[in-house]
């Protein structure tokens, strides 16, 4: 139900929302085709669908001119629709395992393996809490204990 043209235009807008980081080889939202994620979500959520349709209508006549400045204007004039799109863009982009990995997280689901975090040794904990213990109790005890 969404045309290829609409998809391309939405991806152009998404590139403005999450641009790429060439140095670290992190792609933009449009490059990843997050528009498809947003269309899928919009097909299940009428409010989001209305917002996406509204933004596409606005963008259709400006496809080759979309710039940060123009997107800023959209944000200012239509804040609710814009936040709705932005929220869904972040969800679509950061739900991808390959993107998660770029930020140091596991590409795999967090269960069952989770992450290895080494426990602090007893000696280390004793040393780092030494000044806290040295102050003695810091609570008020109205009953006298």
């Amino acid at each position, binding site marked *: 139900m969404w045309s290829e043209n609409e998809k391309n235009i939405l991806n152009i807008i998404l590139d403005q*929302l999450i641009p790429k980081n060439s140095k670290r080889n992190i792609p933009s939202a449009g490059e990843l085709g997050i528009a498809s994620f947003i269309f899928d979500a919009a097909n299940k959520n009428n409010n989001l669908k209305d917002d996406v349709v509204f933004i596409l209508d606005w963008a259709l006549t400006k496809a080759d001119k979309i710039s940060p400045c123009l997107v800023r204007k959209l944000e200012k004039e239509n804040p609710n629709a814009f936040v709705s799109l932005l929220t869904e863009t972040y969800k679509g982009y950061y739900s991808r395992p390959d993107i998660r990995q770029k930020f140091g997280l596991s590409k795999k689901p967090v269960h069952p393996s989770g992450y290895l975090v080494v426990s602090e040794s007893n000696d280390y904990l004793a040393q780092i*809490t030494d000044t806290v213990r040295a102050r003695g109790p810091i609570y008020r005890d109205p009953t006298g204990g």
Partner: protein
Amino acid sequence: MSNEPVDVLIIGAGASGAAIAWSLIETKMRILCLEQGNHLSDKDFPSRRDDYELSRYAEFSCDPNVRRLKQDYPINSKDSCITPVNWNGVGGSTMNFLAHWPRMRPSDFRTKTLDGVAEDWPVDYYDLEPFYEINDRNVGVSGLSGNPAYPKYSVPNPPIPIGILGQTLAKGFNKLGWHWWPSDVAILSKDDNGRQKCVNAGTCDLGCAAGAKGGANFTYWPILENAGVELRTNARVSEIQVDKVSGLANGVLYYGADGRLNQQKAEIIIMACNGVGTPRLLLNSKSDLFPEGLANNSGLVGKNLMFHPLTGVAGVFDEPMKGHEGPMACSILSQEFYESDSSRGFIRGYGLHSGRSTTPMTFALGGYGIDNPIPWGDEHREIMDNMYPYLAGLTIVTEDLPEEHNCVTLDNELKDSDGIPAPKITYRVSENTKAMIKHGEERAREVLIAAGAKKILSKNDDNVWWRAGWHQMGTCRMGHDPKKSVVNGWGRSHDVKNLFIVDGSIFVTAGAVNPTSTIQALALYIGDQIKKNIGTLFD
């Protein structure tokens, strides 16, 4: 399924309902628990899925108004700056809580005597101390014994790792000479009794598929079901009924999974629906004897709602803080500013809790419990690539004082899927709390800078976190005086002698700590009192 009368009917299979059921097993009474939600297997938890973060904004949201599952009831929070969050199902909100486990402190039970505010509790720290200890063992608490912010007690399991984030912040606190301590957590640091130790997945709110988190679904319920406690799920209580002659509660009406209304008779009724659900049900249980709602002769049912208003400050460090590794909310805790100090410009105090920095999606959407996406465009890249991995934050957890205008009432129009009126929340943050938050933000900045932060991120507004309504307290408070409280010193209604309340609604004050440890200790204490007074229970 039998609707034969039972000895004890518990409404709610969460933290407090499970704990008191465990306490009462030895009485050999026939115990039935009605739970509006269902029993989720760990295989249903989203942390095994590739797109696990998405569930935080859908079926595993902490906000029932977002989840909108059949077992959830909507909550009207339009007149509140904080919305209640919860989980409706076996384990209750311990399914998706973050398992931070500090106890309340001795002064929390005596705020009237010590600081001239609120009311004193009818119990004190030492009444609850043995029950904290029993509960810590049952739940599998981990931590470092010897915290000088408390009277001496032992923690059953060694601490979970505080990680580079906790170590870094600890150095800041030490530099300033301020209190801090590794957090007590209801999370296993070693395998125990079929439960796996924490794997540091960082998704405690999504159910903990390892079973390391001490949710009542993993701790108490397996024992209870083995012991013959009947758990009836998808059973939503709409009303507690009373006998017109004796004035005692004699049963409940509840909707089953098929949508039909059933009646269940019982000798003793125990409410364990927490600070919003319990007053909602009492206010919906009107009769000739109780036209303003059951057990409400004091007029205090639903009043004095307390949350813990929260805000946060984060610092950007040189090294990656690995905030996504390890339990979400638990690393270290400072109680330097917990007790009253008149020079600070407010009464009572707050804690500084080290939050970890969550996953990229949640951070980009504003943080856990916040709907405020971070900036887009080049600024987005800068924040995500050059700040997010290097963040360590402190959450300011303030003590909320009871005020009657902060309350739970019934909404005139909004209803759940069974047609039961939804709760309406009326709540605002007091000037005292605002002053506390401001003070806390300034102190948090100092610690972060002392710890080596090169940049500080804070909101620069007065708003508290919207989805901070985990801790729902005070709406059926306990006390000796029936005019000033709803239940007595051991959870029994002043007005209905066989009706007990064991959840967060009976708190007199809120402290500035996560309440579940105290909720369960109180439930065990009340169970103990019921056993001690069994011969004269209804006198």
